[in-house]
C-alpha cells in the first residue's frame, strides 16, 4: 500500500503542474516510474540487505534506452553511418551475414569456430586449473611450484606473449586455443585456491574428530567448500576467454567472430563490426546466465 502511495505522489507532481496533462500520459508516466519503484516487501526479506529486490525491468529499460538513443543519433544523422550505422542496418547485416556470409563464412560458421576455440580452452582450463588450484591450497609444494609461474604471467596482456606462442606452436588452431587457455587458467586456478582457503577450520576439525582421513577431509569438506569460488572462477575465466578471442584470431584465422570483426574493420564495414561485438556479447552473457543457474542449483547453501 505504502508503495503505491509513493508512486502516486511521484506521478502527481508533474501532472498538477501541467494541469491539463492528458490522462494517458499520466498512465504512461506511472508505468515508467513503476519500473524504478521497489516492489512490495516480500515476506521473509530482511530489512537493509544491500541491493535486494528485482532489477530486471530496469536493465531492460537501460537496453531499450541505449538502442533508442542509438537509433535517434543515426536517424537524425548526428554521426555518419561509416562511424555508427543505424540499428536497422546492423540487423539487416546480421540477416545478410547469417544467410549469405561474410569473408567466406556464414555467421553460424564464424560463431561455431569461435565457440569451439573458447570452449575447448575453457574445458582444458577447467580440467587443469581447478585441480592445480585445489592442490595449491592444500599442498605447500604444489603452491611453491606454481605460484611464481601463475603470478608472473597472470598480469601480462595476452597480446604480449601472442608472438611467442605463435613462434612455439605455429599459426594453427593449437596456438589460438593455448592463448585463450592461458588467459582462462590463471583466474580459475587462483579462485580454486582461494576457495580452499575459505574453509572454516572448525569444519575440518569436526571431520577429523569424526575419524576422517586427510583425503576424506579434502574430498568431503575442502572441495565442496571451494565449489562456490570455483564456479565464480569459471565465470571470471570464461570472461577472460572471450576477451582474448579477438587477439587469438588476429593471426591466420579463416573464420571466427574475432576474425570477422577484424576483417570487417579493415574494409570499414562498421555494421559487421558492431554486429560481431553484439553477437560475442550475447553469447558471453547467455553463458554467464547458465553459470548463474548452475550456481543456484549446485550451491544453494552459498553464503549461508
Amino acid at each position, binding site marked *: 500500500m505504502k508503495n503505491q502511495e509513493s508512486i502516486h505522489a511521484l506521478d502527481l507532481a508533474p501532472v498538477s503542474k501541467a494541469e491539463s496533462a492528458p490522462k494517458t500520459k499520466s498512465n504512461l508516466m506511472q508505468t515508467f516510474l513503476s519500473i524504478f519503484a521497489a516492489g512490495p516487501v516480500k515476506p521473509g526479506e530482511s530489512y537493509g540487505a544491500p541491493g535486494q529486490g528485482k532489477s530486471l525491468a530496469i536493465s531492460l529499460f537501460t537496453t531499450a534506452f541505449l538502442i533508442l538513443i542509438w537509433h535517434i543519433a543515426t536517424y537524425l544523422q548526428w554521426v555518419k553511418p561509416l562511424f555508427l550505422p543505424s540499428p536497422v542496418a546492423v540487423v539487416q547485416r546480421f540477416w545478410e551475414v547469417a544467410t549469405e556470409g561474410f569473408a567466406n563464412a556464414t555467421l553460424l560458421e564464424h560463431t561455431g569456430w569461435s565457440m569451439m576455440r573458447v570452449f575447448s580452452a575453457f574445458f582444458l582450463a577447467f580440467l587443469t586449473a581447478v585441480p592445480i588450484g585445489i592442490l595449491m591450497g592444500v599442498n605447500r609444494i604444489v603452491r611453491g611450484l606454481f605460484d611464481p609461474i601463475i603470478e608472473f604471467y597472470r598480469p601480462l596482456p595476452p597480446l604480449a606473449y601472442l608472438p611467442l606462442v605463435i613462434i612455439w606452436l605455429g599459426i594453427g588452431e593449437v596456438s589460438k586455443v593455448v592463448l585463450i587457455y592461458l588467459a582462462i587458467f590463471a583466474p580459475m586456478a587462483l579462485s580454486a585456491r582461494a576457495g580452499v582457503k575459505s574453509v572454516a577450520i572448525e*569444519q575440518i576439525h569436526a571431520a577429523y*574428530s569424526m575419524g576422517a582421513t586427510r583425503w576424506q577431509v579434502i574430498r568431503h569438506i575442502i572441495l565442496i567448500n571451494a565449489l562456490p569460488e570455483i564456479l565464480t572462477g569459471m565465470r571470471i575465466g570464461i570472461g577472460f576467454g572471450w576477451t582474448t578471442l579477438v587477439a587469438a584470431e588476429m593471426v591466420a584465422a579463416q573464420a571466427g567472430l574475432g576474425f570477422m570483426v577484424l576483417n570487417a574493420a579493415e574494409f570499414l564495414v562498421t555494421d559487421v563490426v558492431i554486429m560481431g561485438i553484439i553477437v560475442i556479447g550475447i553469447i558471453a552473457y547467455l553463458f554467464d546466465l547458465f553459470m548463474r543457474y548452475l550456481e543456484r542449483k549446485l550451491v544453494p547453501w552459498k553464503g549461508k
Partner: protein
Amino acid sequence: MSRLQIHDVSVQFPGMNGGESVTALSEINFQIEPGEFVVALGASGCGKTTLLNLMAGFIQPSNGYLTLGDSDISGLPRVACGLDLQDQITGPGKDRGVVFQKHALLPWLNVLENAAFGLKLQGVGKKERIERASYFLKLVGLEDFHKHPVYQLSGGMQQRVGIARGLTNDPQMLLLDEPLGALDALTREVLQELLLDVWRKTQKMMFFITHSVEEALFMASRLIIMSPRPGRITHDFSLDFNKIFLETRDARQVKSMPEFIAMREKVLGIIHGDEVLNGGAH
C-alpha cells in the same frame, strides 16, 4: 574403562612480531575418569578452550603428554611416561567427539546427513547410518527435521544437530566448547537437561566449557575452575546437583536449593577474587 589423562602439560604460543611468548597453559595435571561430567569454568583467556583443543588433538602441547586409554600414568614420574605412550593423543580421532561453540555443520547436507556424516566417513552402510543418526536426532528432539537444510534451522536446533552428530559417532568422550553459549535462556535449559539425560544414558566422559556459573554447577559431576596468566586449574570440586536433577526432574527446584545457592556464591567469590588478584579481567 579408559580415562583421559593430562600429564604435566604446558602450552606456549609464540609471541606476535617477535614479542614474548604467551603461556596459555602451565603444568596441568588432571584426569577425567570414566563416566565423569567435567565442567570447566573461568574468565576469558584462562585456557579452557586451549585445554579442550589439546584433548581433541587440534593442538600439541609444548611439554607433557595426554593419553586416552587404560594405562594409568597419574603419579608416574615424567621419565616413566615416555616409556608407555601407546595411548598418547597425537591428533584428532573419532574416540573424542567435539561439539563446537559456533556450529561447524556442513551446510550442503541436510540434518540427517549431517548427523550421519561421521559414520559415512567410516564406511558404515546407509541403512545403519540412518538408523543410528535417527536415534540420536530423536533424542535431541529433531525427528521431524531429517530432510531440512541445516542453514534454515534456528541456532538452538543447529546446536542440537551438532550434539546429535557428536553422539552418533559414538565417541568415548564428548568435548563441548560452550555449546549453549549463544542460545536463549529457555532453549539453553532444555538442552542442559537433554545433555544430562544423554550423559546418564550413555555414561560417556564429558568435558564441557561454559561461562555460566549456574550452568556449571547444574551440569557438573566435577567442576574445575581455571585462572589466567598463566592458564592453570585452581579449584576442583565434586558436585552432585546433576544427579539430584536426574532423580527429581525439577531443574528450578535444584537451582534454588540452599546448597546450590551457597555453592554459586562460593564459586562467584573465587572467580571475582581471581579477577582482583589479576588486576581485573578484560
